[in-house]
């Protein structure tokens, strides 16, 4: 589904990703872990198409298409969804309005009819229940005045409505209490299917108790330095990232 080859990315002339390789197949859950500043969020934003992140080398193929040729909106329409680490507040734009616009532009791209108000309402109601989203939250301006937990739940709620092929979660678990974390994880698990893949970017092992990954990758200084199964996450929890950083330095010398 997704193939990243030798990806180099710079932000304001500083190289953040330095030759990253990753292959994700349909049905898989990949977790990317790593210390602060290792390039985790950069990877997420590059996949979503943030223009200030410059790809200087390498390629990203998504479902046979050159992803780097696509605008952010076309990536979303092709089935990529990013749950933001810091969801943006948009005053004056109702949450429900954003969702309907988004869903209908994706449907249009696929040659489907726009969803009628009633149908959209029914769909939203169903997903709201899963994510514990209130009517009030749906009517309010996007993320404006939402608590940290509400913002994260709202991201997964959007994911549920838009039903992406590849969902990327950028530290969705950070700052959540255990109850909120369970709701978020339930929301994600409900979406798991053989046709869909997930990239779960996280700083902590905790969320992986609830969203069990098929693969764990460790990103250090812009490169994946180690990959393994879910047990790698536990090892990291135990030993921290220090030993991997040291290994990398040793390898470089």
């Amino acid at each position, binding site marked *: 589904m997704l193939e990243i080859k030798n990806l180099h990315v710079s932000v304001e002339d500083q190289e953040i990703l330095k030759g990253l390789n990753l292959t994700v197949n349909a049905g898989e859950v990949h977790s990317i872990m790593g210390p602060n500043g290792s390039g985790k969020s950069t990877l997420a934003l590059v996949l979503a*198409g943030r*223009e200030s992140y410059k790809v200087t080398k390498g390629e990203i193929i998504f479902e046979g298409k050159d992803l780097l040729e696509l605008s952010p909106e076309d990536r*979303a*329409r092709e089935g990529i969804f990013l749950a*933001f680490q810091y969801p*943006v507040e948009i005053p004056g734009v109702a949450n429900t309005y*954003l969702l309907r*616009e*988004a869903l209908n532009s994706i449907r249009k791209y696929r040659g489907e009819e726009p969803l009628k108000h009633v149908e959209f309402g029914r769909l939203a109601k169903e997903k709201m229940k899963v994510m514990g989203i209130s009517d009030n939250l749906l009517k309010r301006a996007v993320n404006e005045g939402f608590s940290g937990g509400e913002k994260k739940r709202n991201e997964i709620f959007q994911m549920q409505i838009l039903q992406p092929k590849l969902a990327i979660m950028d530290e969705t678990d950070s700052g959540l209490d255990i109850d909120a974390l369970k709701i978020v994880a339930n929301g994600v698990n409900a979406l798991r299917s053989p046709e869909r893949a997930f990239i779960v970017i996280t700083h902590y092992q905790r969320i992986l108790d609830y969203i069990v990954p098929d693969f764990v990758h460790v990103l250090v200084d812009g490169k994946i330095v180690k990959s393994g199964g879910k047990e790698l996450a536990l090892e990291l929890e135990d030993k921290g990232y220090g030993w991997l950083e040291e290994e990398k330095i040793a390898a470089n010398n």
Partner: protein
Amino acid sequence: MSITLSEKDNGYMEGFSRFEKTAPGSNLGWLKSIRKHAITKFSELGFPTPRDEDWRFTNVAPIARSSFHIPLNGIGQVSAADLTPFQFEGQQICELVFINGHYSAELSTHCTLPEGVIVLNLAEAINSQEDILKENLAKYADFENEAFTALNTAFMEDGGFIYIPKGTVVEEPIHLLYISTAGDKPSITNPRNLIIVEDNCEANIIEQYVSLDENIYLSNVVTEMVVGENSSVGHYLIELESKKAFNISTLRVQQARSSNMRSYSVLLGGSLVRNNIHPVLAGEGCNSLINGLYMSTHRQHMDNYMKIEHVSPHCDSRQLYNGVLDGRSRGVFHGRIIVHEGAQKTDAKQTNRNLLLSDYAQVDTKPQLEIYADDVKCTHGATIGQIDENALFYLRSRGISKEASRDIILNAFTNETLESMTVDSVKKYCTNLVADWFRQREQTLKS
């Protein structure tokens, strides 16, 4: 013979001595003395300069330099069809139409009003409603200290007169439509509106200033509005003057106990525009909502000068002014809040947000709080910035096109100031004006 006003050769005084002989109500001693007093004040004050703190960001030299004639009337050049673009759809409306400052009975629309309500043009009201006028006219707008108010007061001859007696709900919005067909010589009009709303009333009044051509003229407007106890009044100012016109407009509101006033200003036209909003919250427990939207382009200059006076305790005022500035235009927001001694428990909030769409547009925003009471809550905030790139990316990452995302953000920004409008037809009209503005901008960018 028309009268010409200019700063050269004592032209304003000369013009006045000719004007006052034939002006409406020239036979009434009290009115005569107000006008005389006003012209004296005007010649003492002179036009303001950027050295005056209240005019720091706005230079009216182009007005001071001009020579304006007072148009006799332009009636006959305008047909009913010319008015349609400026009318509000889908609602019964009561409309007074003025052409070049003079009332046109043929073009106006009269509607059935509740008993006792009077909607007239001022020139007529001077004859038939002398008592109410004598008690209220020029009692609130400060012609002693404000040059443009003094000029208007000296040369006032026509405008809207609205009187709503106790306990009356007026369902139909009342529209005062001022149309300019100025002709090739620069002209001046001094529309003067007097709105008296007694206790326990509800009403909505719309003032609109438009032009049928692109000539040079000055609309120097003064509106006095008295809001009685427990009354609720909406006031809308829609400014669509010609690209070369000057518009100086002053709204002075006097609010009695527990009254509720909502003021909306939508400024889109004119080359040099000054919008003065001056409510005095004189009775206890008043509410004032003061919203505005100014959208400027090319070399337009739009200055919003707010003076919110809290005189009595337990009053709330809320100001929200949003500006969208393009081209080489310039915007000003000067927000004064004055909390007088004894106005305890005042709750005043002021917000001014500006969106710059061009690198050459400029805005000056200046809050000014003067607080003489000790138990009050006053907050102010101002922002100046471009379209939020993070918000734009967020919307695009959800599958919405770049153009649509941009429109969503811009519309949200402009709607913020309009969404609480209670007259639906006017709200829709204003929303369309904003959409047209953006559409025109898109077309200019494409060509």
